């Protein structure tokens, strides 16, 4: 009961946020790699609800400098909803339905375009899909590893514990960014898009397990000595049963909290890696490689809409931290 009340709000926001990126194909007006070399760095278009015939409900997209030029009729065009456009596939279904669009020769760019005239909103949505997927999968990898090793160390104890905690310490003493770079340095630089995706997931996921492993080990260590576990053992319950039925459920809270903490960290790690040119590479978008153009100061000065991936990163991070804080509070109140 308490769980639901404290946690539903950030969880619901996060589900909506992820759902939005999952439906990138439907929400994005253009394909993420579709270029229009005539329109580099177009500023975001704005919307008008007043035309020559007065107010209307259909929004008209206007090019940013239209108002200054004073020829509104020619540079404003109606936005249509649920239009047919480029083909995309979603969960095995092929579709060409999009939430909105404008008549063909015109282009709508709600968040502007980048150096190649690619629509920033579309890239942000598809890039978010990749960045978030990397964060989620890497978290899954490192939590599974942490769960296995932590349970083994905490339950078996003795030399296994010594060895495994020593190993975890090895991963904790090297700063994660250094480790990330060292690990990335040993792997090939130029790979296909899907191979890079898996590589980044693997590299990030295999580095983050040490901290959750320590926490899980602690929980298992104390759970092993609880009276009901001792009683079950006294009745002759085998180890596997004890682990599955009694000890694993007690790690649930720690796992959830750690997941909420790790996901934004790993999304940011992907961003850093791709920002350095070591992660997901063009033309596949990710928030990190979209930010990489900001290494040129001229872009940073002139085109503020190139900063939108940073805002998306902040939203992701802040919401997950909110969830983690709520989870931590719930864990503390329920464990006493």
């Amino acid at each position, binding site marked *: 009961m308490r769980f639901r009340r404290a946690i539903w709000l950030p969880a619901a926001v996060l589900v909506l946020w992820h759902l939005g990126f999952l439906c990138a194909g439907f929400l994005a007006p253009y394909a993420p790699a579709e270029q229009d070399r005539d329109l580099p760095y177009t500023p975001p278009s704005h919307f008008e609800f007043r035309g020559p015939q007065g107010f209307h409900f259909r929004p008209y997209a206007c090019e940013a400098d239209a108002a200054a030029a004073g020829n509104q009729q020619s540079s404003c065009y109606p936005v249509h909803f649920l239009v047919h456009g480029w083909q995309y596939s979603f969960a095995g279904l092929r579709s060409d339905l999009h939430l909105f669009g404008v008549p063909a020769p015109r282009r709508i760019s709600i968040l502007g375009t980048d150096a190649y005239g690619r629509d920033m909103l579309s890239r942000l949505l598809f890039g978010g899909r990749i960045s978030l997927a990397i964060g989620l999968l890497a978290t899954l990898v490192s939590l599974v590893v942490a769960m296995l090793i932590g349970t083994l160390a905490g339950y078996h104890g003795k030399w296994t514990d010594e060895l495994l905690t020593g190993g975890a310490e090895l991963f904790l003493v090297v700063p994660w960014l250094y480790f990330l770079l*060292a*690990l990335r*340095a040993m792997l090939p*630089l130029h790979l296909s898009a899907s191979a890079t995706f898996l590589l980044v997931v693997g590299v990030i996921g295999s580095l983050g397990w040490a901290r959750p492993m320590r926490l899980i080990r602690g929980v298992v260590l104390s759970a092993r000595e609880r009276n009901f576990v001792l009683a079950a053992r006294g009745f002759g319950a085998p180890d596997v049963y004890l682990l599955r039925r009694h000890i694993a459920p007690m790690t649930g809270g720690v796992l959830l909290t750690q997941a909420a903490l790790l996901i934004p960290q790993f999304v940011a790690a992907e961003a850093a890696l791709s920002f350095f040119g070591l992660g997901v590479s063009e033309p596949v978008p990710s928030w990190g490689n979209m930010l990489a153009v*900001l290494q040129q100061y001229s872009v940073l000065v002139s085109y503020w809409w190139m900063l939108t991936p940073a805002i998306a990163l902040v939203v992701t991070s802040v919401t997950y931290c909110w969830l983690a804080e709520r989870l931590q509070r719930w864990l503390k109140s329920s464990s006493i």
Partner: protein
Amino acid sequence: MKAYLARRLARAVLLLFAVSLLCFLLTRLAPGSFFDDIRLNPQISPQTIATLQARYGLNQSLPLRYAHWLGSVARGDFGFSIAYNTPVSRLMWAPAEHTLLLGGVTMLLCWLISVPLAVWSARYERSLFDRGVSALTSLFISVPEIVLAVGLLAFAVRSHALPVGGMTSVGFDELPAWGKASDIARHMLAPVAILVLVGTPVIVRHLRSSVLEVLHAPFVEAARGCGIGGARLLFRHVLPAAANPAISLFGLSLAALLSGSLLVEVVTGWPGLGPLILDATLARDLDVVVAAAMLAAAMMIVGNFAADLLLLAADPRIRTGSPDAV
């Protein structure tokens, strides 16, 4: 106590050795090598590449190469950079100094800002000040470092308030001594500001909660009853009792002196270890990457060890092995 220290020291040395082995193995088992790009060039014969590889000892067996590498570490060379054709240590000296300068200033500012902030916000719990500090702390803890870096850089570049890129202005050599110092200081503003924004919230949050815990302890009530109050109570009696988590954090920030600023250095163009390591990674100059990772790990171990020593000195409960030690 001597036995305790000796045990910690032995563990630290063992750990460092294990890190070196891990880094070395990871990089040497890699499929690629420095000569991959050359191999694509049809004008360079396989014999030439073989000769080059032999010269740098890339064709020897792994244990032999590890022994060679350990030897060069013992000589203080830390391996050989193929890209720059020089021992790694010579390559890392100047950038390490720059990074240390940046890290030192950052660390000083972080602690000068966060200790009073944490103590006062705990003292005036639930006040407007405390709520403000907590809100800002939560915000800055959750914003990723890369976003902070890019955001502040955008602000600096657009407002022309702070110089960005590099460490010195164009006419640096002609400046007088004082001018040189102030020039470096102005270039340092942007990276230091980012790093302080990243580092301070963590310290404030931990220190605030531990001070809060101590403020509710009976001995504080007793001290108040004896007429001790105000700053004397806070900084003379409460802070030392609440210092343990802060000391551990101090060890961590000591450890991060060389390694904590990698991303910010790359983003702001500070000529420290960060850009060096990134370039080495992109060029597959593996000895540089390994040496940097080793250096960072060594700093981390030293920082943790220093924190242990400080804890030992600061907390009698740990010295006597009392069970209620935190």
